[in-house]
């Protein structure tokens, strides 16, 4: 009887399959299938992404996975010279600030169209800025880069952005409240890319709302991102976790796409990505684990980016008063064998940091020498400070890897050993990155902790400002006597208009921070890598992770 049942079931299934297939039909576009075995310009670049893009409207985004996608389909007024963090013309051909550095005039590229046909011109630019500036409540928290860089919305007090006026079709003027080193570099951030006003109106781009614990984005953000870039959005297959971009054939730039398609396959697991590359399933992925570099160097093109990040050990004297004494902080610094650490736990080309900004940033002080590994000196300093048997709780994150911190626990272990060697008692406090670590450290509850930063654009303020400008922030610099001085110095130096002067000012500040203040211990800068299979060439690695995937040359 069971047998008859099963046969019946099978028959039923077969019948239904037939029934369905009669109404179902292939909707695939026949061109697609050829892509596998075709000449370069019709090739597909299949890139392994670590996570799904949060949204396709970069304005609301803050994470690399999203930006990588939007960087292919959008362009900002300014861009960056490939392979560097230098500001370069993009949709604006040239720009110049007024004497007081508060009014910036941009000359726009002409004959540019958004992929929906809308012409790109001064009016479009201003529409974009207006849109960014006028956000609803949800939008104001979601568009975090604007908040962080522009400091507010709708002319809020001390908002940086002051307005945009179209002088003529090809000239636009942007006013800001104070001179700042960020400008115009920050306009190169993907968040501030130019998007088609028509598309944004049509698909209610500003229609974002908070729901449950997250944001619900507009149709525009979900399915109709429209830019001027060399690629354009085709589809996001959520069930297969793939995003497909196709070449924008009427792209105005001279760096037209050399691939027909860029497909992002989302593979969250690091090892799975590597193996997908090894098996030829994907043509490349970002941030390979340093332990795989040797193999990847051998079998693929491992592109190592210039280091544009900093790993530091934050200290907080408010939590642990023992740290108030500079000698103690210095002792802890001397006690760490950073050469060993960098050699054994950080990727090739990682460097021991001498200050809180990587050496590629203007204002980097070359004269500064690293605190050499010197346990004896550390001991004596502790003795002098009367803290020979210092106890300290060292926080480190779990369930995370960062470009500046490939394996937090191993780095922790190394530091712990070194500190114990000079008689410091270390209590480990591991916390999940998203499970309390970030909150704890950023709210200044951690006496000592591992943290880091990857630059958004090439200004010292992007690093130092973030670490120290808030006196009650992570390292609670406000608790130190020199706290206010540091705070003032930061804002002053940032508003120096002349680049050369600004650079020297920052060099001075960096020296001070390292020698007189030492609020935390910069550990290292690690070059993040991006890897492509041997058959992919032509993508220049960028310190800002601003890789132009469309320039890839995919050979058979």
């Amino acid at each position, binding site marked *: 009887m069971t047998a008859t049942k099963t046969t019946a079931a099978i028959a039923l299934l077969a019948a239904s399959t037939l029934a369905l297939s009669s109404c179902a039909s292939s909707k695939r576009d026949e061109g697609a299938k050829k892509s596998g075995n075709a000449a370069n310009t019709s090739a597909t670049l299949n890139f392994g992404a670590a996570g799904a893009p949060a949204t396709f409207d970069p304005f609301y985004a803050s994470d690399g996975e999203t930006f990588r996608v939007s960087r292919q389909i959008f362009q900002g007024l300014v861009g960056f010279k490939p392979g560097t963090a230098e500001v370069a013309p993009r949709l604006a051909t040239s720009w110049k600030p007024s004497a007081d550095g508060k009014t910036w005039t941009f000359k726009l590229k002409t004959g540019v169209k958004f992929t929906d046909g809308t012409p790109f011109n001064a009016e479009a630019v201003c529409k974009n800025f207006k849109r960014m500036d006028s956000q609803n409540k949800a939008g104001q928290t979601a568009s975090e880069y604007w908040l962080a860089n522009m400091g507010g919305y709708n002319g809020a007090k001390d908002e940086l952005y002051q307005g945009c006026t179209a002088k003529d079709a090809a000239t636009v003027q942007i006013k800001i409240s104070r001179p700042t080193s960020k400008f115009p570099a920050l306009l190169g951030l993907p968040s501030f890319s130019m998007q088609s006003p028509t598309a944004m109106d049509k698909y209610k781009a500003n229609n974002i709302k908070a729901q449950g614990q997250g944001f619900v984005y507009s149709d525009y953000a979900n399915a109709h991102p429209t830019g001027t870039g060399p690629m354009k959005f085709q589809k996001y297959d959520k069930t297969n976790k793939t995003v497909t971009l196709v070449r924008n054939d009427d792209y105005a730039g001279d760096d037209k796409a050399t691939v027909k398609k860029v497909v992002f396959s989302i593979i969250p697991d*690091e*090892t799975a990505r*590597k*193996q997908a590359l*090894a098996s030829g399933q994907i043509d490349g992925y970002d941030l390979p*684990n*340093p*332990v*795989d*570099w*040797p*193999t990847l160097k051998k079998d693929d093109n491992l592109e190592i980016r210039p280091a544009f990040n900093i790993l530091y050990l934050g200290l907080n004297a408010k939590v642990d008063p023992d740290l108030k004494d500079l000698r103690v902080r210095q002792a802890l610094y001397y006690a760490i064998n950073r050469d*060993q650490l960098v*050699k*054994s*736990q*950080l*990727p*090739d080309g990682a460097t021991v940091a001498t200050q809180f900004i990587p050496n590629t940033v203007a204002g980097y002080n070359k004269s500064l020498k690293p605190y050499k590994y010197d346990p004896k000196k550390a001991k004596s300093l502790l003795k002098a400070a009367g803290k020979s048997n210092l106890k300290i709780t060292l926080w480190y994150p*779990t*369930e995370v890897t960062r470009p500046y911190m490939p394996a937090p*626990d*191993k780095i922790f*272990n*190394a530091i712990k*050993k070194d500190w114990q060697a000079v008689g410091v008692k270390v209590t*480990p*406090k*591991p*916390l*999940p990155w998203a*499970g*309390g670590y970030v909150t704890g450290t950023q709210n200044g509850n951690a006496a000592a902790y591992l943290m880091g930063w990857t630059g958004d654009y090439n200004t010292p303020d992007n690093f130092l400002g973030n670490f120290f400008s808030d006196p009650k922030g992570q390292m609670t610099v406000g608790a130190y006597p020199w706290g206010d001085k540091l705070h003032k110095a930061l804002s002053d130096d940032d508003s120096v208009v002349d680049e050369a002067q600004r650079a020297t000012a920052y060099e001075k500040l960096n020296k001070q921070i390292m020698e007189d203040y030492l609020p935390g211990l910069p550990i290292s800068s690690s070059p993040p890598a991006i890897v492509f299979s041997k058959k992919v060439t032509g993508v220049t690695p960028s310190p800002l992770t601003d890789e132009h995937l469309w320039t890839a040359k995919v050979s058979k």
Partner: protein
Amino acid sequence: MSPMQRKKDRIDALAATAGTAGDIPDAGHVSESGGLSLIGSAWLRLRRNPVFLVGATITALFVLLAIFAPLIAPHSGTANPLIGQVTTNHPIPNPQSGYPLGGDNQGRDLLSRLILGSRQTLIVGVLATLAGLAGGLVLGTLAGSFGGRVDTVVMRIVDVMLSLPSLLLALAVATLFGQPSQWTLIIAISVVQIPIFARLLRGSMLSQRSSDHVLAARALGVKRGPITFRHMLPNSLGPVLVQATLVLAVSIIEAASLSFLGLGNPDDSSPEWGQMLGRAQDLFDIAPHIAFWPAGCIVVVAFGFTLMGESLREALDPRNRR
């Protein structure tokens, strides 16, 4: 189990203890079927059962290793004598004199960590099992000895726990504690086992309740407490203990899975096999042995425990006296 079936089993059990299992003297066990107690005859058969012997030997060796680990291990588990050879280009020090298995990616001696790992692994396994057993005992005894409404309530709770797939529950518990540690791991694993033990105990205790000797005891006016603890519990423990052996294996594997998902014990100063394996994943294709060694150990030990548990189960189950 239908009452018919239960009745049948009891008859079989009686037959078993009486020594004549039906009219057909069953092949093999005739010679010893002369009025032996269940346990006794079970032991008689275990002694001859290769499956059990293999399992028991593995287990014994493992426990011994765990106990004397520090004496056996050539190096400390935390010292990193090979750190000098660890570079990002060559993260795993090769085997070399004094370090037959080479080092791990923090320059520590792999062999020593494996040996020392046995202890931690055993601790995790045993503690997790005990915790689960304790929880199960409480719930199961409640349900089993009182029955009726108490039973229903307790079993609802158990159902809630059962209604979540084990790993989910473990993950949940693991994340529940802000700061992950060996203890969160152990609790996470044990929680999963509680409902299983509870059900098991309740089951066998309920059948005990209706069984002759308990009925007799009750008829003689013995109070519930004594009945539960002197009559029902002891007689229900057999299957529970068998389950415990099996759970030991499971816990060791669960520990590995949790570590693999990044929810294990972050502090690796006292090595544990599951943790070692869980963390070796990113080194799998450059240095497979880093993963294979702990994996091998886990498989062998889990295998041993399972073999022992299974053969015990078969031996203690009157229906399997064939």
